[in-house]
C-alpha cells in the first residue's frame, strides 16, 4: 500500500525542502534547493520501499548517501536532527492512520542510524585531525632537529678543521700538531688533507706531534700506521713525536708494533731529524759586525 498519493507526496517533498532551505547558517542553504530536494525525495522513496518490504534497509542507504555528501560540506548534528524531525512532521501529517505506527518505527530507525553514522564519521574525522596534527607536530620537530643537526655538523666540521692544522715549517717539511681525541673520522680527514698537502708542496717529511692527544690507544695507533703507509706511497715519511710516557707504556702493553714508524721524543727532535734528511740544519745567526770606530 502506498502511504501517499501523487499530489500529497509532491506537497510533502516541497514542504520539507522549503523548510530546510529556510534554516539559517545551515548546510541546506549552502547546497541549495536541487540537492535538498534530492535528499528529501530519496528519504521519502526509502520510506515507501521500507514500508512495502517491512524493513529498514532503504532508510540506511538514504542516510549514508545524505551523510556522505553533506558532512563534507559542513552538516552538523543539529542539521541532521532537523532534517529527520521536519521530514517526520510532514510525513505524519500525510500518512493514513493505519500506517502511523509503521512510520514511527521507520523514523525511530532512521534517527538511530543517522545518529550512529554521524558519530562514526565525526569520530573518524577527529581521529584523522588528531593524527594530522600529530604528524605536523612531529614534522616540525623533525625539521627543527634537522636544522640543529646541520648547525652542529657544520660547527663540528669547523672545529675538526681547526684542530687538524698542517703547518709547512720548512720547505719539504710539514708539521701536524694533533690536539684532542684522535678518532677514525679525524684520521680520515687528516689523511685526505695531509696527502693533498704533501702532493701540493712536494713534502718529504710530515711530523705528527701527538703530545696534545690525551689517549693514544690501539685504535689511534692503527690509524697512524695506516696514515703513514699512505704517506709513504707518495714518497714521504711520517715522524711520530710527542708520545707521552703513559701512551708508550700502553702501546707496549698492547703489543702494538710501531717499528715501521720513525718515532722521536719531541717536536724539536723530529724537526732536527727532518732537517737532516733534507741536508739542512738550524744554526745560530752570525753576530752583526761592530761598526769600526
Amino acid at each position, binding site marked *: 500500500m502506498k502511504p501517499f498519493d501523487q499530489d500529497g507526496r509532491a506537497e510533502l517533498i516541497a514542504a520539507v525542502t522549503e523548510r530546510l532551505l529556510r534554516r*539559517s*547558517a*545551515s*548546510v541546506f*542553504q*549552502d547546497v541549495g534547493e536541487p540537492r535538498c530536494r534530492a535528499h528529501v525525495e530519496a528519504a521519502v522513496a526509502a520510506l515507501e520501499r521500507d514500508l512495502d518490504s517491512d524493513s529498514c534497509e532503504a532508510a540506511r542507504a538514504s542516510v549514508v548517501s545524505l551523510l556522505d555528501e553533506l558532512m563534507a*560540506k*559542513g552538516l*552538523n*548534528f*543539529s*542539521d541532521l*536532527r*532537523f532534517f529527520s524531525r521536519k521530514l517526520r512532521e510532514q510525513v505524519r501529517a500525510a500518512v493514513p492512520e493505519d500506517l502511523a505506527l509503521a512510520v514511527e518505527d521507520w523514523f525511530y530507525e532512521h534517527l538511530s542510524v543517522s545518529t550512529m553514522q554521524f558519530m562514526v564519521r565525526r569520530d573518524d574525522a577527529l581521529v584523522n585531525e588528531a593524527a594530522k596534527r600529530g604528524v605536523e607536530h612531529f614534522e616540525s620537530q623533525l625539521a627543527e632537529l634537522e636544522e640543529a643537526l646541520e648547525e652542529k655538523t657544520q660547527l663540528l666540521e669547523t672545529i675538526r678543521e681547526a684542530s687538524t692544522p698542517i703547518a709547512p715549517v720548512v720547505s719539504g717539511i710539514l708539521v701536524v700538531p694533533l690536539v684532542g681525541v684522535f678518532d677514525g673520522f679525524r684520521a680520515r680527514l687528516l689523511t685526505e688533507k695531509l696527502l693533498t698537502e704533501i702532493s701540493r708542496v712536494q713534502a718529504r717529511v710530515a711530523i705528527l706531534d701527538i703530545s696534545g692527544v690525551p689517549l693514544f690507544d690501539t685504535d689511534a695507533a692503527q690509524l697512524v700506521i695506516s696514515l703513514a703507509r699512505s704517506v709513504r706511497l707518495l714518497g714521504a715519511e711520517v715522524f711520530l713525536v710527542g708520545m707521552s710516557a703513559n701512551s708508550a707504556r700502553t702501546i707496549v702493553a698492547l703489543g702494538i708494533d710501531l717499528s715501521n714508524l720513525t718515532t722521536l721524543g719531541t717536536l724539536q727532535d723530529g724537526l732536527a731529524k727532518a732537517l737532516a734528511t733534507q741536508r739542512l740544519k738550524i744554526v745560530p745567526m752570525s753576530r752583526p759586525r761592530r761598526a769600526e770606530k
Partner: protein
Amino acid sequence: MSSKNEYSGAALSSFIVALSKSQVTVDKLLADAGIDRIDPDAWYDYDWAVSFFFKIEELLGSATIAQVGRSMIEAATYPPEIDSAKALLSGLGHWFRLNARGPDVGDITCEFEDDYTAVIDNSARGPCSLNVGIIEGACARYGVTPLIEHGTTGCKDDGAPTCIYRVSW
C-alpha cells in the same frame, strides 16, 4: 551612547583573573601596552581589548581562551530571573552590552528553535573560542553540557562578520 568603541575594565578584569595561571604572559602583554593594571571602573579601547584577546589565544592556545570564557560567564552575577541555561543564553546579548559600548562593537543575539535548541549569532569581535567558552559556561552554570556546533556561514577567526552557533542540550 559612547562615540568610541570601548570594553569595560570589569570584563577585562574577570578575563585576566581567569588567566591567573598565566600571569607572567598577561603581565608582559599589559606592560607592552603600557598598562600596569586593569581598572575595573574604567573603559578601554575596544580594538586594543580584541587584539589582547587574540594575542592571548596565539600565546596560550584556543583551549585556554575557551576556559577563560567559561570562567568569565560562570563567575558573573546575574539577576534572580536568570535561573536556567535558556534564560542565561537569552541574556548573553544584554550581558555583552553591559561590557562593551560604542557604535561598532557588535552584538550577541539568541533565538530558540525549541526548548532545548538555541541559535546564537555573535558579531562581537574576538576569538571564536572565547564565544564557545562563554556559551559552555552559560550552560555549565546550570549543570548543562551543551552540544555547540558552528554554523556554515563562516567564522570570525577567518574574517567572517559573525559566528553562528547552534546550541543543543
